[in-house]
């Protein structure tokens, strides 16, 4: 796999996400030729969101503003780990008629990323069945890339 230095890091505002980011920073921090994308994917609004008179634009603008702050913070962490800020891109998307893991894999395919980094919460069986595990889904359904699951 010759594009492994093209790294897609899925981030959110959780400690496990930060762990993944720190781990990735340690591994790729001072490597030359690294190209990183910080990806934050958020879900569609709940079905009752529109009942309050709010629009999809209200929802996305609020989520994107939160995500911009998140991406900035993550960018800072990677920069401190030694990655050239010019090599760090940010991407924020809503999982539109898809799950979050499907959206991450779509970005990986489109951008031909060789590595995906994701934090792992460590959920119970029942939680995984009902709420899903993004890291499990990435491991099961990824193609043409390596997935680093950081627990």
């Amino acid at each position, binding site marked *: 796999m010759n594009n492994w230095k093209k790294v897609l890091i899925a981030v959110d505002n959780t400690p496990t996400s930060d762990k993944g980011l720190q781990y990735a920073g340690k591994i790729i921090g001072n490597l030359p030729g690294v190209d990183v994308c910080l990806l934050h994917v958020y*879900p*569609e609004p*709940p*079905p*009752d969101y529109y*009942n309050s008179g709010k629009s999809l634009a209200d929802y996305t603008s609020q989520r994107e503003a939160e995500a911009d702050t998140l991406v900035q913070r993550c960018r800072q962490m990677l920069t401190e780990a030694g990655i050239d800020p010019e090599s760090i891109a940010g991407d924020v998307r809503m*999982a539109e*008629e898809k*799950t*979050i*893991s499907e959206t991450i894999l779509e970005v990986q395919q489109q951008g031909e990323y060789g590595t995906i980094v994701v934090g792992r919460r460590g959920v119970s*069986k*029942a*939680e*995984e*069945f*009902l*709420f*899903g*595990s*993004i890291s499990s*889904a990435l491991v099961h359904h990824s193609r043409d890339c390596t997935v680093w699951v950081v627990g």
Partner: protein
Amino acid sequence: MVEFADLPAEIREKLRNHRVTRSLRRKSRVFVDTTNFTAIDYGDIILVDGRYFLVTAFTREGRFGVDDQVKPWVPKVEDLTTGEHKILKLVFHETFDITFGPFTIPCYRNPEKEARVLELVKGHPHFMQGEAVLDEAGNLVRILDIINGSRVDKVIHRSKSGHKEYFNNELPDILAHYLPCVKAIGFLHSHGFRHGDVRRDHIFVERHTGLYRWIDFDYDFYLPEKPFALDLYELGNALMYLTARRNLYPRDIMADPDLGESVARKIEPGDYSLLSKNRIANLQKIYPYIPTTLNNIFLHFSLGTEVFYETVDELYLDLKTVLTKGW
């Protein structure tokens, strides 16, 4: 507002002679706006889509724990032009949480989703039929055909046979009818819809065809990463209920003279349901004549499972294989 006197002469005539209005001490009111559905009463008329629906009764809640509560947003009606009996569902936005063990899932009553599902399943033999129209205030009124039949959980209790006899003689036919219902939920999922309220009492057995049909599509839930998991889990629950003809908890085993403590002692932590506390999923330990192939399906929904069904189609194919081979 439409006054009684404004109604067409033939409708007024029908009302005069109708059993419902004959017993009324007031004139029927005509509602063209159903926003305040609690104001609509027995003997009133809901005028939508140019059709005059006389309210003849209200449906009642079948959910366990709130049995028999009147649902004022779901009147039973008669179309005064055709004489057909229908059920109307009026817009009632409701949000509530359902709890599975330690987990809480937000649920919603979603009339728009039900209208879209009704459109999708038009002509499908395993779903209730109906259409959605707007009242004068823009409320989505669903006009539903009444299924002439009974809930499947009532039907399976008609025979008073013992469980082994039920299992060998009645269950194969019941599951052969349930199988296409499982497939039907997969059909919804393939179009991006959830049923939202898969329950054994939401399958009606049509009297003249024997077909099993799903009812009630207005519930929705929010599980963005596993959008169909709850439907899938409840399909497994319904399958286990049909097989055991009840939900089984340790107290039921202890209370059953055919089972008792010797059977209860065999139950291990992994035999319980993944999400329903103390409900036993490993039914073969209670009824040893349940074939392993069928029991393996149940075990996918147990705490001991290493593998989940990811899609309804996987469950469907396993059940189909079991039923094709028989027992």
